[in-house]
């Protein structure tokens, strides 16, 4: 049998998806189903004087209208689930519908439930709301100014929390040969998975059971939080999220509208569906990034980096979303020293409330921001000391023989060969030749530039003890059950919740490799809290390193039991049984054998099992990782800037990533493609803008530029494979590397192209106008 672990197996989820037979939440149709629509605040900050729902309630087809006051005492508020330690966090809970005040454009004011979606939408126009509009503040530094409008009375100065970590002192910087300082703005991004969020709730009053189909990356976390909000026993709440149309972090959070749909179904005794439209997504689904970063890097003239410190002022929006406090702190701060041997590092974070949509994790969550500032600073440092930026990277990279490596932020990096990835990427790019061509073309008035990023990131967060220590209000282990049926076919239950990443295929490959059976004989079940014991979902590139490892452990347990049964069947000692390609054989007697399927049948017939052995063949694992894992790599981008318009043309993009052993190269490459394009999206096109009144002016796809196919050349990808000693598969995660690496790579390439103009910084996204203006000011000052 061909090697299945590492093979480009075609995806098993595809047949239903390419024929329109997927079942996304919005596709769920139930008899007697009602439709909900939510009235959202058009003001960023206002007192609710009166909400008059009489006309809406009387409209044809309308079944019920709920306001914030109707929920009092019947439904809890929406909590946050990350409380960074020693941060004095002000975790003001989010009411599912506003009661006294609205705090961002999009904050829920009322919900209509009607016989169909058209009637529900029409009724929204009939609700009369009297608002007393109050001054709003949308930008974090403005929100920290004395006298700024207050978002929450119990969060003075709009400070949600302050958090610091690290070992760098003032002294390190005052004594440094070179100190480079720069401010960066991580603009606000809107995740925009192509599937808008949706929820369908079905309540069975006779059993007291609520089934909730949700666009969720983590149905068990949703169940845990929603059980509390709705006051339901956890075992009576079933959350289902099988086909989910992308998440990118935006479907981690537990949202008010999701709870409301469950509430309405329980109140009305009929199924209720709610689907956000894209305009609502822009307003009411969490945003990402939005940080102001003041950075100092200290080093020596020979290119050695000695210290880095960052002050991060993070815009959290109007309420603390589920994982929001962890993003600018733990997920950002701990990785600031990146892949370099930097002895001193420090991070200071201020989380700020503003009258904007709450922010939370967005693909990469904290690590793109850290990687961006670090890679930008390395280039600025190289420029300051007159060295090639690649030479500076090479000088500071952690050498391959230094692992496990302890960083200034207290992490222990698992394994790596950073130089190998760098060499490979530079060779693919033809870096040295490019520098010559670049100089030649500059003589002709053409401005090409190259950006190189060497990065390391954190995935597979765990063990759970660490999750607790960093304030995450959950565990970060993962569950897997491998159920072998009497015929040797296998059903796998995983607590992760893939939504595009392809684990129905790669997880089957893991099991197929373990059992020596065809991939087709294995079914992966995910996204249903009634079928899966427990799990923590899919985010932070944890699915394969943690969920896949759980699966590997569970499968090994099956093999051990099967080996004992095989030994009994073949009348040999268990230690003399060899298992390969689906056959148990007796060492030295290849004729004596039993197939995996035969053993499975015997396990269930149980006519003749080893003494004391229970029947059946099933293995479970609740796997808690021993430590984080650290994917790394090098990305290179070559751009041309057209100085007459400021347009940036992407000429080449090279990505060399090391996710540990690659289970399915086709799928891994696809993850890199998508991640890179999203990262470039931040660099060049995407950015949310609020006006002074707190209106989102980039609130549709007409204004907010998502990357399109013709913006890109073919991406060139490759892998190196350095196993991690931190889990049984050695895998590290590939879902976010592209997004983490691509943004600084492209921006550094543009700034390299503009070096002749002395341009040092341009705010993202690097729109043509911003690039053109930077060139103009460079020309003026020259």
């Amino acid at each position: 049998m061909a090697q299945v672990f590492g093979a480009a197996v075609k995806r098993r989820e595809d047949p239903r998806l390419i024929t329109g037979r997927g079942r996304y939440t919005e596709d769920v149709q139930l008899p007697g189903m009602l439709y909900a629509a939510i009235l959202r605040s058009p003001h960023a900050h206002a007192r609710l004087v009166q909400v008059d729902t009489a006309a809406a309630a009387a409209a044809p087809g309308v079944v019920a209208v709920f306001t914030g006051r109707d929920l009092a005492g019947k439904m809890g508020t929406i909590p946050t689930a990350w409380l960074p330690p020693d941060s004095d966090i002000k975790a003001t809970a989010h009411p599912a519908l506003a009661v006294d005040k609205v705090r961002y454009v999009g904050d829920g004011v009322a919900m209509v439930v009607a016989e169909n979606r058209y009637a529900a939408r029409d009724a929204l126009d009939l609700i009369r709301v009297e608002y007393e509009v109050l001054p709003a503040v949308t930008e974090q530094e403005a929100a920290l100014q004395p006298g700024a409008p207050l978002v929450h009375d119990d969060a003075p100065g709009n400070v949600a929390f302050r958090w610091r970590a690290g070992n760098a002192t003032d002294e390190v910087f005052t004594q440094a040969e070179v100190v480079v300082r720069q401010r960066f703005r991580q603009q606000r991004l809107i995740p925009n998975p192509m599937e808008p969020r949706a929820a369908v709730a079905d309540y069975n009053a006779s059993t007291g059971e609520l089934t909730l189909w949700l666009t969720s990356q983590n149905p068990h976390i949703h169940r845990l939080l929603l059980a509390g909000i709705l006051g339901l026993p956890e075992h009576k709440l079933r959350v289902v999220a099988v086909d989910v149309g992308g998440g990118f972090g935006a479907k981690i959070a537990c949202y008010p509208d999701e709870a409301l749909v469950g509430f309405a179904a329980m109140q009305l005794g009929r199924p209720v569906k709610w689907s956000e439209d894209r305009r609502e997504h822009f307003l009411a689904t969490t945003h990402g990034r939005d940080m102001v970063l003041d950075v100092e890097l200290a080093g020596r003239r020979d290119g050695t980096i000695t210290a880095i410190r960052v002050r991060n002022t993070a815009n959290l929006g109007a309420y603390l979303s589920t994982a929001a406090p962890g993003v600018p702190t733990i997920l950002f701060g701990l990785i600031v020293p990146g892949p370099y041997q930097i002895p001193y590092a420090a991070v200071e974070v201020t989380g700020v409330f503003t009258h904007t949509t709450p922010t939370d994790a967005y693909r990469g969550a904290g690590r793109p921001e850290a990687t961006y500032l670090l890679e930008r600073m390395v280039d600025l440092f190289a420029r300051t000391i007159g060295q090639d930026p690649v030479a500076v990277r090479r000088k500071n990279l952690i050498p391959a023989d230094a692992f496990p490596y302890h960083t200034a932020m207290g992490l222990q990096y698992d394994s790596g060969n950073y130089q190998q990835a760098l060499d490979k990427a530079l060779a693919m790019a033809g870096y040295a030749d490019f520098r010559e061509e670049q100089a030649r073309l500059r003589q002709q008035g053409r401005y090409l530039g190259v950006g190189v990023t060497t990065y390391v990131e954190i995935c597979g967060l765990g063990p759970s003890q660490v999750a607790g220590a960093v304030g995450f209000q959950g565990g970060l282990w993962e569950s897997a059950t491998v159920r072998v049926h009497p015929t040797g076919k296998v059903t796998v239950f995983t607590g992760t919740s893939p939504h595009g990443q392809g684990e129905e295929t790669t997880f089957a490959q893991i099991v197929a490799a373990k059992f020596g059976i065809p991939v087709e004989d294995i079914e992966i079940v995910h996204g249903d809290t009634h079928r899966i014991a427990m799990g923590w979902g899919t985010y932070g590139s944890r699915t394969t390193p943690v969920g896949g490892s759980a699966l590997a452990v569970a499968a090994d347990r099956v093999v051990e039991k099967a080996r004992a049964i095989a030994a009994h069947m073949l009348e040999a000692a268990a230690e003399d049984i060899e298992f390969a390609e689906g056959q148990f054989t007796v060492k030295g007697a290849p004729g004596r054998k039993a197939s995996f399927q035969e053993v499975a049948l015997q396990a269930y017939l149980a006519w003749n099992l080893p003494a004391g052995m229970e029947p059946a063949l099933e293995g479970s694992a609740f796997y808690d990782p021993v430590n984080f894992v650290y994917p790394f790599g090098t990305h290179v981008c070559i751009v041309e800037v057209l100085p007459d318009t400021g347009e940036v043309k992407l000429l080449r993009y090279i990505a060399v990533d090391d996710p540990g052993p690659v289970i399915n190269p086709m799928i891994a490459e696809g993850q890199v493609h998508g991640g890179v394009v999203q990262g470039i999206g931040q660099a060049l096109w995407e950015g949310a803008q609020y006006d002074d009144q707190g209106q989102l002016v980039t609130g549709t796809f007409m204004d907010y530029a998502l990357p399109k196919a013709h913006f890109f050349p073919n991406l060139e990808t490759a892998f190196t494979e350095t196993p991690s000693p931190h889990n049984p598969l050695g895998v590290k995660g590939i879902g976010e590397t592209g997004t983490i690496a691509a943004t600084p790579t492209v921006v550094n390439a543009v700034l390299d192209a503009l070096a002749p103009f002395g341009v040092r910084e341009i705010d993202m996204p690097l729109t043509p106008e911003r690039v053109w203006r930077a060139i103009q000011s460079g020309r003026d000052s020259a």
Partner: protein
Amino acid sequence: MEAGKVRVSLEVNGKAYTAEVEPRLLLVHLLRDQLGLTGTHIGCDTSQCGACTVLLDGQAVKSCTVLAVQADGGRVTTVEGLASPEGLHPVQIGFWEKHGLQCGFCTPGVIMTAVGLLQDNPRPTEEEIRTALEGVLCRCTGYQNIVRAVQYAASQMAEADERREVAAAETE
């Protein structure tokens, strides 16, 4: 007929349907909510994302920006109607072979867009494919494998055409 409603008759995936609809009913809602054809998705409000693309009288259109009454008398093909009894459409096969989808939500619309492209231009260059995808948004794949999928389908369809021509020549 209920006041204000309009009767529409159309053929969807080869089957005739007649329904009484509000004039404002969007074609995509007719397909999804009334005919249960949920393969056609809604991804935006402003005709940008293309997730709702279907063929109307053989042309790729965005069914969120077409009223059901406008499709009266028309012939609609959705992703559910693309495969033939012999098997999947070459574009569907291309998406499977070349990993042209991840979460799959945009996929039906992208597939229908690609079918429309290959009708007009059976041998598109890479640049032509990328340009023809102007009206679809995919957040997962970075588009590269979508391009490969369309190229694969184009070559498969060209080969099938050649085989048919050879067979036709032999029977003459």
